[in-house]
């Protein structure tokens, strides 16, 4: 192996040898390091050494499984794994298996899987749903999970945990290695990856990351720079200048629509760059993305405007500059994106942040502080989601069937379900066999059947539907976009297309397109003539400020309050902070600033806890609920990473509520669920759960109308469950998920603890302050009312 490294002019790192030895010893573990530092070969060469020094079996059955979170990474992974196989003359068959795999290869794999297989969690679930699975996976030596930090905090991570438990049961000596970026809680990463075998896991730290330079483009005239907004195109001239400085630049945006808009803007500013700049995001057709990625590798592109779609994997050596539009919202993400540049030795990674509104300058400054202090975020594992357990049980019922006690023992070896109770398990079994609790069995219902204690799926229609809905990523109904001539462009949300009239123009895939019609679930378009048009919006979750970054922002503001403005960003944003101080106040570290202001919309209350959007969502519901207990009132709520707005037609009883414990951490156990229900948050969360548990179904490709009769919105289902089956554990799960995942329950409690000890500073102001402005203009709102519905409607229409 050393010779092979030497032949390529490399030398193995010490951590790589450590992993090879540990693997040879039969150990499992986690390798953590920044991307592009040799983690791949650390994990991959162990089994090759084993083969070379050991059995040397000529065409071994499936031995190594490589799981990657993104389908987009599969081809590149395959390529880099293949190199040593070829150089060392190892006659292994190596293939990938994803939704894109050709039918001929699939057919071959049905008979026999290759020695090494690269796949995704969803495709693996499909493989495990086949009756041959038990035999096909029983010779496995090693599973490698790439980018485990991306998976672990998600339900896809839980799906992977369940699959690993399955594979370990088939192969008691199976070794598992995870590759992860640096995290605040690596112990949890190992615990989730290895389940009940986490004790004694080998933690291997890769090479120490290189230096990162974080700077920003500053607005020329702060007095004309907006207080709110998320596009930031007013910084276009500076961004174009920065792109001109570098050879190859990646421009990261936070959303797909922002990505489209920036691509258009840059192209308009520099028409001669046509062909040299490209666009890349997750809704674009695979072929378009491949073309962009190839161009990046070859260094033929000057600039690619992208989203998190280029966060992971794939090394693009020519990239020497990274620009981040808007705040990165987290330290780990900032460093990850910075690491996409300067891949050559001795080159510094550099990321340049572009503020989209004034306060983002504070965030950039704060994220540099947090990065220097090494305050990397943690990813919190998902705890026993029953929707996914039900889905997995059906998958295994398809793949040869299971016995209840055996599968329970197996799933309990995972971290996610280590504490799943007998009652919950019984409920899941009832759910998949009878549709609910034993007492209310539905005779017409039939998904999984039990015969002699073995759970199996026999109905082919049910099997087909289950296979189509495997997977846990929630996507809105999306519709494919194609040219009339057939060329595929990608997909957009159905709701966007439904608002377009034939002949209308829109921008997508970096092109001006004319909408022609929808035909058989495909939106047909033709090339536009550059007319102005709308840009699709994808309903992705908005990124929230991490707790580490929020803390650094509070610190920076506290300094500003004391007149300390350090660093170019803080000096640049000073005039806006001065305005904030003049109109209202800059909140100190131990203060809670509350602003009251009346506008034509009504009476506004702004609270500024600076805890990030997620915590604020919970606080908004809680504050609105507690205030609404004092008198009948209706609120609309908005929030951003800095604060919360409660807007009502009449003044809210703020002083009375503060006296009655508005900020108190007491009674949270009762108040939070009540406020979540009132604010309909659990109802929204149920959308994902209903889909994973197979209650709603997005349909077959090209389905007909009669299937539609069996579709109900998850909101309608939620209402029916709450009313007629309140003990349904999926409803309980919706509450739990809102609390734990969306609101980070512990953080919510900690925040109230902090706020209740803060000095409350109420400012009655004449016009909205710079801090309130971004929240004020946000029109995506939640609502909560304690008025009698009919009274409320009468007042609304009066």
């Amino acid at each position, binding site marked *: 192996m050393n010779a092979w490294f030497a032949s390529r002019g490399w030398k193995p790192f010490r951590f790589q040898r450590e992993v090879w030895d540990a693997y040879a010893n039969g150990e499992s573990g986690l390798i953590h390091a920044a991307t592009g530092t040799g983690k791949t070969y650390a994990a991959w060469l162990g089994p090759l050494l084993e083969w070379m020094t050991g059995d040397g079996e000529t065409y071994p059955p499936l031995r190594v499984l490589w799981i990657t979170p993104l389908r987009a990474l599969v081809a590149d992974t395959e390529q880099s794994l293949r190199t040593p196989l070829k150089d060392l003359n190892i006659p292994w068959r190596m293939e990938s298996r994803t939704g894109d795999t050709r039918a001929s290869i699939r057919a071959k794999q049905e008979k026999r899987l290759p020695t090494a297989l690269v796949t995704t969690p969803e495709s693996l679930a499909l493989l495990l749903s086949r009756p041959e699975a038990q035999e096909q996976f029983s010779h496995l030596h090693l599973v490698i999970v790439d980018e485990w930090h991306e998976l672990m905090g998600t339900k896809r991570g839980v799906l992977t945990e369940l699959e690993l438990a399955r594979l370990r049961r088939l192969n008691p000596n199976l070794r598992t290695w995870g590759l992860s970026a640096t995290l605040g809680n690596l112990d949890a990463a190992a615990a989730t990856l290895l389940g009940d075998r986490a004790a004694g896991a080998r933690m291997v730290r890769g090479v120490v990351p290189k230096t990162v330079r974080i700077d920003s483009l500053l607005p020329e005239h702060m007095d004309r720079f907006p207080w709110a907004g998320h596009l930031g195109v007013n910084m276009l001239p500076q961004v174009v200048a920065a792109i001109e400085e570098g050879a190859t630049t990646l421009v990261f945006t936070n959303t797909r629509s922002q990505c489209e808009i920036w691509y258009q803007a840059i192209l308009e500013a520099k028409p001669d760059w046509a062909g040299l700049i490209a666009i890349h995001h997750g809704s674009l057709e695979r072929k378009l993305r491949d073309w962009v990625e190839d161009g990046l590798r070859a260094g033929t592109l000057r600039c690619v405007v992208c989203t998190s779609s280029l966060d992971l994997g794939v090394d693009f050596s020519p990239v020497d500059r990274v620009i981040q539009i808007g705040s990165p919202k987290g330290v780990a993400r900032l460093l990850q994106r910075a690491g996409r540049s300067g891949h050559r030795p001795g080159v510094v990674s550099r990321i340049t942040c572009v503020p989209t509104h004034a306060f983002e300058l504070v965030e950039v400054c704060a994220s540099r502080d947090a990065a220097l202090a090494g305050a990397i975020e943690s990813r919190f594992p998902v705890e026993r989601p029953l929707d996914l357990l039900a889905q997995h049980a059906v998958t295994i019922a398809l793949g040869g069937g299971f016995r209840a006690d055996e599968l329970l023992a197996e799933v309990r070896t995972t971290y996610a379900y280590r504490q799943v109770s007998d009652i919950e398990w019984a409920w899941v079994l009832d759910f998949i066999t009878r549709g609910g609790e034993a007492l209310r069995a539905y005779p017409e*219902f039939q998904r999984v059947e039990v015969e002699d204690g073995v759970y199996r799926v026999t109905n082919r229609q049910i099997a087909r539907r289950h296979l189509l809905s495997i997977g846990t990523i929630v996507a809105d109904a999306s519709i494919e976009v194609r040219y009339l001539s057939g060329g595929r462009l990608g997909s957009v949300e159905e709701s966007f297309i439904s608002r377009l009239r034939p002949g209308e123009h829109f921008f997508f895939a970096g092109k001006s397109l004319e909408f022609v019609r929808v035909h058989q679930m495909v939106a047909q378009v033709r090339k536009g003539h550059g007319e102005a048009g709308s840009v699709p919006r994808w309903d992705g979750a908005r990124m929230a400020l991490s707790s580490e970054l929020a803390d650094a922002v509070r610190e920076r503001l506290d300094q500003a309050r004391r007149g300390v403005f350090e660093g170019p960003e803080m000096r640049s944003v000073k005039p806006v902070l001065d305005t904030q101080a003049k109109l209202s106040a800059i909140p100190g570290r131990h203060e809670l600033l509350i602003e009251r202001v009346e506008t034509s919309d009504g009476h506004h209350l702004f609270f500024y806890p600076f805890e990030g959007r997620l915590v604020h969502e919970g606080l908004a519901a809680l504050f609105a609920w507690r205030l609404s207990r004092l008198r009948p009132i209706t609120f*609309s709520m908005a929030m951003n990473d800095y604060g919360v707005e409660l807007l009502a037609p009449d003044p809210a009883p703020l002083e009375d509520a503060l006296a009655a414990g508005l900020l108190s951490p007491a009674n949270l156990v009762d108040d939070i669920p009540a406020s979540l229900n009132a604010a309909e948050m659990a109802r929204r969360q149920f959308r994902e759960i209903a889909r994973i548990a197979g209650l*709603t179904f997005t349909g077959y490709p090209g389905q007909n109308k009669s299937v539609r009769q*069996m579709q109900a919105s998850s909101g309608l289902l939620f209402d029916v469950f709450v009313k007629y089956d309140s003990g349904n554990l999926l409803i309980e799960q919706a509450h739990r998920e809102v609390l734990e995942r969306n609101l980070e329950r512990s953080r919510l409690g900690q925040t109230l603890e902090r706020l209740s000890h803060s000095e409350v500073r109420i400012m009655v102001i004449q016009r909205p302050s710079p801090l309130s402005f971004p929240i004020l203009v946000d029109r995506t709102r939640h609502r909560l009312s304690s008025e009698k519905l009919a009274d409320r409607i009468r007042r609304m229409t009066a």
Partner: protein
Amino acid sequence: MNIDIAGTSLELLPERAAFWRERSTLFVADTHWGKAAAFRAHSIPVPYGTTDNDLARLSAAIGKTNCRRIVLLGDALHAREGRAKKTFAAVAEWRARHADVEVVLVRGNHDRRAGDPPEELGIRCVDAPLYEAPFVFLHHPVASTQGYSLAGHTHPAVKLRGRGLQRATLPCFFFTPTVATLPAFGSFCGNAVISPEAGDRVYAVAGDEIVAIPTVY
């Protein structure tokens, strides 16, 4: 709430039904009986209770009005797969409690596929339209030369906005100069937001009250 229409008057009930006192007739649209059962038959475990609950609400409307006749304006049954024993047993029990009330179904699009309710339920089934001056009873909300149409089918709802960026969407009765559309009676039904024009009248079902919604604002 009483409203004047086509030279007679209708009482709109928050139970999502309309009462024609002159002929002692209660109008109900889109009950979609057995919809949850149809979902269960497709192995989507929707809980029991929707049909029972809806029948209890229908009984309440009968109790309030002492009506002698009920006209179902189409989509009585949701789907063929929803023709479950338990559903029909519940409807039969309800029917027995109000044996002296005549029930007429004007067939809708779902009824064509789902079939008529079993004969023993004593529900007279006819194809739309049914004329009874000044009204035309039918399922699809279309104008008729024979009279003022009373219909269902669209599950109308009205979207409201108010001060303080408030919003609400409520099921409603929707009266145009030629057609009245009733809200869907079934509780396991979605709805569709209407766009009223000048001259239309809209009455929202707000909990246990009916509220008139100004159509020009």
